[in-house]
């Protein structure tokens, strides 16, 4: 069943609601336009919204009940779009199958976590580069760059880029631009593939090994370590410390709706660590017996702010109030020059319906069957990330050693050339 991509209207209820929203906005906008410069937000601009809708691959129901403060963020792409997207495969002739596969994995949430997504994306790009052949009358540099750009737009459609992916794409594009023109096509492709391999190996795999060794020195016998959610680096640290024989126990803190901690808990218990599992609302109850907190990060900004899974900031603040040192473990390639002061201006929205439903508890259905009038008053918000201020972080463990949060811009400045291999 094919739906034409031009179809703009979602279910009629939603569109009428949206139309009324827009109707209200329009006269207000026209008045404001006389006095003020035109609004810069793309979402307010009618023609841009239409253009984006026409170009978008995924059929979005008109966004309703969205929180005003977060309207600038792209709405969540539902996993239920999967059959629709699968059917459109043959229309997307520009797409390489491995990139397509990775995009679908992002959409459904099978691949999540900064490192995993970045590695999956880079390996897909490697495949695409191997299968690439320069069309006649075009140079490899420019054409390949535009192709990569196309792949990236598709991936953004499926799920907004994480910081690690952004840095990796910047690295790849600069590498392509730097290719000497004298190379033949096969040599250029081989060089790019080996560069990608080197990036993955040096910046992720080896960096993780260095981080393990540094972080394990901070774990003493008798410690009670707290970890939040599921970070691959923190899990590696705990397993490594257990292997080298340190005696400690772990408290895994988890939160709805993702409940990512459960997977990590399973893996830790399988290796024989003694674990405690609790939810985020009990954090101040368990914090008094915790000696160290280990957190992962999606990215760290230049003012030392840690951008990580939503809930991390709460854990760090409670730990700080109890004078428990907080260690953030993050590879250096995830550092970014941006400065972010709050969790609002840049974030990612998750599925709002996941907040109102509890899987496995059909009796918790208080938010079902609301009338439209009631639904207008209810706005569901599901954020994916939050920003932890640098005051709550004791130390950042990177492959460059243990640094205080104030030294992130130093690493970015000194090693930007090196860590992005630019």
């Amino acid at each position, binding site marked *: 069943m094919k739906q034409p991509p031009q179809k703009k209207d979602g279910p009629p209820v939603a569109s009428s609601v949206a139309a009324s929203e827009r109707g209200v906005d329009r006269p207000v906008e026209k008045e404001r336009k006389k006095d003020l410069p035109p609004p810069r937000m793309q979402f307010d601009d009618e023609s841009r919204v239409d253009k984006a809708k026409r170009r978008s691959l995924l059929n979005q129901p008109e966004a309703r009940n969205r929180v005003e403060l977060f309207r600038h963020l792209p709405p969540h792409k539902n996993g239920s779009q999967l059959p629709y997207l699968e059917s459109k495969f043959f229309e997307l002739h520009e797409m390489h199958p491995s990139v397509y596969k990775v995009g679908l994995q992002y959409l459904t949430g099978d691949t999540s976590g900064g490192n995993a997504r970045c590695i999956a994306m880079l390996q897909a790009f490697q495949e695409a580069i191997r299968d690439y052949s320069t069309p006649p009358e075009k140079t490899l540099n420019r054409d390949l760059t535009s192709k990569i750009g196309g792949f990236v737009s598709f991936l953004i459609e499926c799920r907004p880029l994480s910081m690690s992916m952004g840095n990796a794409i910047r690295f790849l594009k600069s590498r392509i631009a730097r290719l000497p023109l004298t190379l033949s096509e096969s040599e250029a492709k081989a060089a790019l593939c080996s560069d990608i391999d080197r990036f993955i190996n040096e910046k992720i795999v080896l960096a993780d090994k260095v981080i393990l060794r540094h972080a394990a020195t901070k774990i003493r016998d008798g410690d*009670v370590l707290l970890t939040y959610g599921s970070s691959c680096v923190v899990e590696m640290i705990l397993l490594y410390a257990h292997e080298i024989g340190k005696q400690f126990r772990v408290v895994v803190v988890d939160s709805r709706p993702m409940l990512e901690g459960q997977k990590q808990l399973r893996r830790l218990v399988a290796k024989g660590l003694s674990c405690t599992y609790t939810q985020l609302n009990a954090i101040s109850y368990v914090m008094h017996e915790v000696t160290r907190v280990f957190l992962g990060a999606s990215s760290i900004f230049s003012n030392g702010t840690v951008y990580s899974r939503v809930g991390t900031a709460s854990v760090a603040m409670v730990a700080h109030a109890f004078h428990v040192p907080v260690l953030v473990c993050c590879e250096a390639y995830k550092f970014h020059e941006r400065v972010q002061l709050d969790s609002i201006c840049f974030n990612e929205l998750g599925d709002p319906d996941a907040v109102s439903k509890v899987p496995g508890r059909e009796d918790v259905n208080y938010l079902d069957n609301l009338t439209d009038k009631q639904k207008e008053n209810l706005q569901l918000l599901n954020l994916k990330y939050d920003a932890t201020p640098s005051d709550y972080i004791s130390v950042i463990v990177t492959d460059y050693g243990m640094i205080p949060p104030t030294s992130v811009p130093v690493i970015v400045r000194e090693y930007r050339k090196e860590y992005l291999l630019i």
Partner: protein
Amino acid sequence: MWWRSASFILDRQQEQNANVPPNPESLLHSSPPSSMADSLQNPKPNVSAYYQTRAAHHAVVTSDWLAQAQAAVSIQTEDDSSGSDGRIAPVTGGKGDDKAFSVIDEFNSWRKQPDLAEAVAAIRALAAVIRASQATTMMELEIELKKASDSLKAWDTTSISLTAGCDLFMRYVTRTSALEYEDFNSARSRLIERAEKFGEISCKARRIIAMLCQDFIFDGCTILVHGFSRVVFEVLKTAAQNKKHFRVFCSEGRPDRTGLRLSNELAKLDVPVKLLIDSAVAYTMDEVDMVFVGADGIVESGGIINMMGTYQIALVSHSMNKPVYVAAESYKFARLYPLDQKDLGPALRTIDFGVPIPSKVEVEKSARDYTPPQYLTLLFTDLGVLTPSVVSDELIQLYL
């Protein structure tokens, strides 16, 4: 809940370890163990040699204490001489013995001079290694120096300036050896020259720091000082020579009672001095305008490691909004990152209470504590006046 706390378990473990002959490497440091170090252990690892030396230089010395110390030192040298012959697997026959013996011996002889900084003593000892070495290429010399440096570091793991000084010199050597065009002998003489100059650099550093501090000492101010730091003494001496009117509160600094020594020296300079017992610091903090301390080591977070009592004074000053200034040379920057007090390797020293203590009573024997960077206002170093967050910047530039 105290029976479950990590520090309690750690202390219990240390007790158990104390019954077994202790190996400093088993205590959790960030420095990597070396196999060579096992053979050249400090024969009295329970007591920090660094703090013993400081006590010897600056503390009030009673005659029987002196006798004890001398006896202890002579036992150590005997152990060294008897131990090193048997324990070292000689790489170059008898030369290995001599060298290993001479490094630590040299170091000890340099260190005995009270005015010489630890790091300078270490570098002079390493310079002696270069002089005595028979190597013919830079690579060989580097390897010898590395071995000597490792053995020095392992001999006293608690001294941060020693480790930092060794690391700095090794770094200079590595950078020098990268220059291919020089012939070996001129490179070698340059290294020796540099090592000799380091002593002057250290003295000059003190003078630079003293000059930088002058702007912060205003007429009529009251300065609180803790412990006997030669750098801080230089600062106060220069201020007195510049005819500034200020007075100094010295905390007693038990158990070494370094405050007594410092107040003595200051009185000779005609600076008004008031002596406080350690518990009186909070009581007098109202009248104080600023706090000056030295540092045994400055760590990567920007905090300092200094004589026991510094953290207490910093906490009191911070809560009463008095600035805490740290005066230290830049070679004391170390790549450590303590998260709390117990995260440092233990540096223990014997405390003499004057009366016999029953054996069932435990005594907190640590000689140093860690002051986190949020309680420090400024660091005065020979690189300039820095804020604590710049330390990591400097370290990254130096070591990475």
